[in-house]
């Protein structure tokens, strides 16, 4: 599938590259909500947010935050919107996860608002219950301790495997020695 953002990296696009490192790219596109809009996206191709690894997502958000600060200062904007359109239904145009930083001014006529809906308490309760249950199923998706532990475990397992492999090798050598008359 063709991807506009990957094309930017390949130098095939008119978009202006502002910053790049191993993980994060910052560009100015020519398709924007308002002039001054800046786009942050990961170098690696991910279609939607759910696919982006935590580490890269974090870096993108931090880059977006800094971009937003720069926008505040340079364009003297009165506000910024940080927008992630995740999926076609959310208006995502390019199949590459991206964060848009949109400078805002009082009365700029951008419709980035929504009409608040009246929700009855029962509906809210039901939704809250559904979500809470599903989130509970995810388990602890943040705790870095657990992750480290699991990593350590993996490492340990890896070491053990290596040691075993060594032993096997030695055994093999010993065996081969024995074989020599």
């Amino acid at each position, binding site marked *: 599938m063709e991807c506009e953002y990957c094309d930017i990296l390949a130098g095939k696009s008119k978009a202006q590259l502002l910053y790049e490192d191993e993980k994060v790219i910052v560009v100015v596109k020519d398709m924007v*909500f308002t002039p001054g809009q800046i786009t942050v996206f990961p170098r690696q191709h991910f279609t939607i947010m759910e696919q982006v690894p935590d580490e890269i997502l974090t870096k993108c958000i931090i880059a977006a*935050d800094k971009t937003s600060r720069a*926008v505040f200062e340079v364009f003297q904007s*009165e506000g910024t919107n940080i927008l992630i359109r995740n999926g076609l239904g959310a208006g995502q145009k390019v199949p590459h996860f991206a964060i848009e930083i949109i400078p*805002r001014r009082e009365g700029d006529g951008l419709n980035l608002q929504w009409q608040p809906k009246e*929700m009855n308490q029962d509906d809210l309760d039901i939704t809250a219950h559904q979500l809470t249950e599903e*989130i509970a199923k995810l388990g602890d998706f943040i705790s870095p301790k657990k992750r480290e532990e699991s990593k350590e475990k993996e490492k340990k397992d890896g070491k053990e495997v290596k040691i075993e492999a060594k032993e096997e090798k030695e055994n093999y050598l010993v065996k081969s020695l024995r074989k020599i008359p």
Partner: protein
Amino acid sequence: MPEPTEEQRKQWEEKIKNMSPEELQELQRQQCIFCQIISGKIPSKKVYEDSVCWAILDINPAAKGHVLLLPKEHYAIMPQVPEKVLGHLSIVAKNLSQVLLKVLRGDGTTVFVANGAAAGQRAQHFMVHLFPRKNGDGLLSAEERLVGADMALKVKAAIEKKLLTLLGGKKEIQKQLPREEIPSGAEKKVLAVESEFFITSPSAKRYHKEKCAFAQNIPEENKVVLSREEAEKTGRKPCTCVSGKKIPLVKPPKLPKVSKAKPETTAATARPIATKPKDRPKDKQPTPTKTKRGEGASLDDIAKLFK
């Protein structure tokens, strides 16, 4: 509560003026609805909580399943939020988005942050809006439009420096700075100076012009670029291509890239550095760099206009 009298109001204003930033923040915290929600003074529909943040359902949602993700600490706007917290929020947002998609069968999710009243921020507490989307639900109906390429250039010119300082793009700054330092007229000068650079290899006793057949025989990884002075200092003698006694076989100029790399080294350091050719392709790799550089000088002017 009785309406405050004129005097009371003045007193308050005095007080606020004399407050330290910490005290002000404390006051904001006391006034903040969401801090009261988090402290439990106002009931809410909580869906998730950890040590850093809360996720609650919006009472006036954009759509069913509209979640507000709030840091427990009080921050008014995004620039105040520490990076750690932002990173944490993004990971939580990712997982919540996944849940929203699964439970409410959306066609997508929107993650939205409003910084400042002009951006539609209603409460003085930084938050991430997260809501499921359905095709054609008409939310956030702003459409993107095509702006001219020059607008993108203007934006780039205006914001690039600031952004790079904030992002700490050291590599980029090194690359960019020389470009900005070169005044528009410098291009020609650089070209004139170009012939003052010669190619040799670490073990060679002579130095050559770039186009010289001998120079081209030096393997890329051994090529050393230096000035006449440097070459003479190291005891190297000019090749016939330099002294002009005899013109050796000239192959067609090899890579136009090489000639581009040089001006950059000249301008950047004013003193030639023996660059390993392996580094060079990096600098020159953007062939468009050259065109950009040409515009670079005038871009500053545009930037001024833009401000």
